[in-house]
């Protein structure tokens, strides 16, 4: 088809996901009718995925600075100073729709994409994380999706040789038709070797490296911005296949080139491939660009300009070289057996000019297109929060029964079945493997380390988006603290339904407000992120899921703490719980798993308290006072203690938890940790807490093979282990 000659119809505009008013704006900017290539470019640049048109207004309110932030949102990934001249570079990104359509390749290419976002900035990727949400375990598709997604993440990450060190998994029927696959990469770079994407230098070569371009994933970016419906089958050809081997070569080749002085700027080709990468580079640098599409390495014959500009073939990068560096760069990419082609030059025209077969097939103004990219202030309504659930109104079930039940429930059961499929040790720096509160990865060649955690409790966000947003941030902060880390910054991945519906838009607005509030209070800014909207199937939205990925630093890896009970006779201390708190059961797993209730206001997060308690705990660790530490989240105190006992294969003897017993044991109050300390240190720790106004209370002592309460009732660790470890393998074997 001759794309230039074709006249644009209303139908074309619609299939490109553009509204009438957006098309009117296009006509105004172009001063004429666009051709199909140009329309395609507008459509991807103005898609929700690339333009953030529904969320931009609210994202701007997030705190993004701190003395240690080197680069906040806006680049391929965020950058923080972690001391010693080093920087941590990280980001999280979703691959939800592709993973639902083809779980293995969808998840795999999600990992590939986030890796490129990070190494394009000069960082060697050192850790991957994955935050996953699946439908109900009973849904006929769930098992297949879990299996495909997990093997896809492993298949890609294991092959490129970056350890996948942690993540999170939830199951809920709201994800039955729309799973969430959020992948995060953390990289390490020298602060003086960070690469950005703004193009500069008229006449500089625009270079294409990596794999050849095929017809993969055309319209992927617009698909990521569209709701699923009955016709989603038709969108299938947009699935891309990942090639982790080529990615590994691309990482090595880019690292080698980055060590020279050849690169002016660099950017990966992510969603909307060549279009968004070239456009963004030129736009950021205030440059023009001229591309000769005949030079683009092509995998298939007779590719059109439209296809080349919109292809989402994987494992490709765009580089602006400094003058005269072409030969040096070419040699490196040839050594790594990758494609290398000079496909264009930078100009001063401020326009993007595309040539194909000697003809101009597209000519667009860059600045006006970028600046006119739509920004909506969509109508929104606040979620009405349920009344607080009183413990007295909730049935008190025998704690032993409740604990057994919770330890083996899908949201708490051990994720070992997953993480054993991920190489979490390659690169020989994984100091804390999956299974603890945060992953800890040593900073190579030093005694320092990064602590990384991803968290979100979607049921809280649904019940109260503001508190839920706060909670997601606070939980990562707490998890990093629990291993001894100083939390520094976060990346977020905001997964929501259709923003044109006011209640959904309300969730977005309020969750962002909550996230922002928590970031401010905890000095824990947002440095990168991603928004994924329209996560709905046939009009039914997912639980609002703003996944947060937090990164912190441990200045001395020898002070790292783990959840495992260590020695019999250690004293168990609960910190952060006020004595008069009866325990928060609203939105708890106790309520949901044992009483099938998903109601009530979620536990509120007192950020000043959060910070005071966390700083106290971290301080104790620096003093070498703590033998084990675990923050309390899903399932509350009883589940937290059971997890510590399982990890250490050591029981504990507990004092009377007080009444009401069920809410004290299973309430999900925030800002709490369980610690163990040597018996001789217990008084010092309690006194120190008193001085700092941190509630702290002795719970009991470690020892034995059971968890025993003062009244003599007990549960065997061995039994809990079977339930906790058993659920996933049994479920996945299809026998449950």
């Amino acid at each position: 088809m001759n794309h230039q000659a074709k006249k644009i119809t209303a139908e074309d505009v619609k299939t490109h996901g553009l509204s009438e008013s957006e098309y009117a704006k296009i006509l105004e900017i172009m001063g004429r009718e666009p051709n199909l290539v140009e329309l395609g470019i507008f459509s991807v640049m103005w898609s929700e995925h690339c333009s953030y048109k529904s969320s931009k207004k609210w994202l701007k309110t997030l705190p993004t600075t701190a003395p240690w932030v080197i680069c906040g949102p806006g680049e391929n990934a965020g950058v923080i100073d972690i001391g010693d001249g080093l920087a941590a570079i990280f980001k999280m990104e979703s691959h939800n729709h592709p993973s639902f359509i083809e779980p293995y390749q969808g998840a795999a290419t999600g990992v590939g994409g986030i890796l490129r976002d990070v190494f394009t900035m000069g960082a060697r990727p050192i850790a991957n994380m994955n935050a996953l949400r699946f439908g109900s375990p009973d849904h006929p598709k769930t098992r297949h999706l879990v299996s495909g997604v997990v093997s896809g993440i492993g298949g890609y990450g294991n092959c490129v040789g970056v350890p996948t060190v942690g993540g999170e998994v939830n199951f809920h029927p709201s994800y039955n038709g729309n799973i969430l696959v959020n992948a995060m990469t953390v990289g390490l770079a020298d602060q003086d070797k960070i690469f950005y994407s703004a193009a500069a230098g008229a006449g500089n070569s625009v270079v294409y490296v990596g794999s050849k371009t095929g017809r993969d994933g055309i319209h992927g970016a617009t698909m990521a911005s569209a709701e699923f419906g009955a016709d989603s089958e038709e969108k299938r050809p947009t699935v891309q296949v990942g090639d982790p081997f080529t990615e590994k070569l691309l990482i090595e080749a880019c690292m080698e080139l980055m060590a020279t002085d050849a690169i002016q700027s660099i950017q990966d080709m992510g969603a909307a491939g060549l279009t968004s990468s070239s456009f963004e580079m030129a736009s950021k640098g205030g440059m023009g660009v001229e591309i000769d599409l005949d030079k683009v390495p092509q995998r298939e014959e007779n590719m059109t300009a439209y296809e080349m500009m919109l292809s989402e073939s994987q494992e490709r990068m765009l580089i602006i070289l400094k003058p005269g560096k072409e030969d040096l760069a070419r040699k490196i990419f040839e050594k790594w057996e990758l494609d290398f082609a000079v496909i264009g030059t930078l100009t001063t025209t401020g326009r993007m000019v595309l040539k194909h077969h000697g003809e101009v097939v597209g000519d667009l103004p860059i600045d006006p297109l970028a600046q006119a990219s739509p920004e909506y202030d969509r109508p929104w309504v606040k979620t009405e929060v349920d009344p607080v659930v009183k413990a007295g109104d909730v049935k008190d079930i025998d704690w032993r029964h409740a604990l057994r039940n919770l330890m083996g429930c899908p949201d708490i059961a051990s994720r070992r079945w997953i993480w054993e499929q991920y190489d979490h040790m390659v690169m020989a720096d994984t100091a804390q493997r999956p299974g603890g509160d945060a992953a800890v990865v040593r900073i190579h060649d030093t005694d320092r380390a990064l602590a990384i955690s991803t968290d979100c409790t979607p049921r809280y966000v649904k019940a109260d988006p503001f508190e839920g947003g706060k909670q997601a941030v606070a939980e990562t902060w707490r998890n990093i603290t629990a291993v001894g880390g100083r939390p520094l910054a976060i990346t977020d991945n905001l997964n929501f339904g259709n923003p044109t519906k006011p209640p959904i838009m309300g969730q977005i607005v309020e969750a962002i407000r909550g996230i922002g509030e928590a970031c401010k209070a905890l000095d824990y800014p947002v440095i990168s992120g991603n928004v994924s909207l329209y996560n709905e199937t046939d009009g039914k939205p997912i639980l609002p899921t703003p996944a947060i990925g937090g990164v912190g630093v441990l200045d001395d890896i020898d002070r790292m703490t783990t959840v495992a009970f260590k020695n019999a006779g250690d004293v168990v201390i609960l910190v952060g719980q006020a004595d008069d708190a009866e325990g928060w059961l609203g939105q708890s797993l106790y309520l949901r798993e044992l009483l099938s209730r998903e109601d009530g206001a979620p536990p509120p997060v007192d950020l000043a308290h959060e910070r005071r308690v966390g700083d106290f705990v971290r301080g104790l660790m620096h003093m070498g006072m703590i033998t084990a530490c675990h923050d309390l989240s899903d399932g509350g105190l009883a589940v937290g203690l059971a997890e510590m006992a399982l990890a250490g294969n050591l029981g504990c003897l507990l004092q009377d938890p007080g009444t009401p017993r069920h809410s004290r044991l299973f309430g999900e109050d925030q800002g709490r940790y369980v610690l163990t300390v040597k018996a001789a240190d217990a008084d010092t720790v309690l006194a120190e807490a008193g001085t700092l106004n941190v509630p702290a209370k002795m719970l009991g002592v470690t020892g034995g093979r059971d968890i025993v309460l003062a009244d003599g009732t007990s549960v065997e660790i061995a039994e809990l282990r079977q339930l906790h470890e058993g659920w996933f393998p049994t479920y996945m074997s299809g026998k449950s």
Partner: protein
Amino acid sequence: MKAAVIVFPGSNCDRDIAIALEQSMGKPPAMVWHRDSELPKVDLIAVPGGFSYGDYLRCGAMAAHSPIMREVKRAAEKGTRILGICNGFQVITEAGLLDGVLMRNKDLRFICKDVHLRVEDAKSPFTAGYKKDEVIRVPIAHAEGNFFTDEDTLKRIEDKGMVAFRYATPEGDVTQDANPNGSLNNIAGIFNDKRTVLGMMPHPERLSDPTLGGTDGRKMFDGLVEALS
């Protein structure tokens, strides 16, 4: 001792093994790029883990046919010690330096976890740092480590004492439950008949540092250095 590490496109444990070797040797090994046709004169050649050529087709197959492997085979003939770990084991097996093949794990999944190994033979330089029947803890990380061969070859391997390590319980019992991948006779690592070549699926280089949770792997490198210096 002098050592070299072969680097293929897709190798990803090359740095890890180099660090472990350096820790024991006191100096770094030579890193040899797969397209080099010359090997430095060394006492030990390590073929590292990873996904050489993506492990497409069959694990290790394409690397086994690369030019550098001709040199490695020549060195092996002259008695240079060769250590293949994980993908390296697959590569040297495909190259014909060891018997058998490494097939898909019995439950088809990639497995990354610590396993226990019983040291079956401590007389080689590779195992000189261990005692016979000692149980060590070392991680595995592979999807294709299921050792297989025909009955006659298996008999020969066993009769000649060519098994270096077997998957075992922490107490040292060789049981089906302790076998993570379906390998025949729980074989985790084997020698050639002269004990100059060792291939093993587990990664000793990953537990050679207390910060990473164990040091049982380090004894292999210390033992090599002592035996080959």
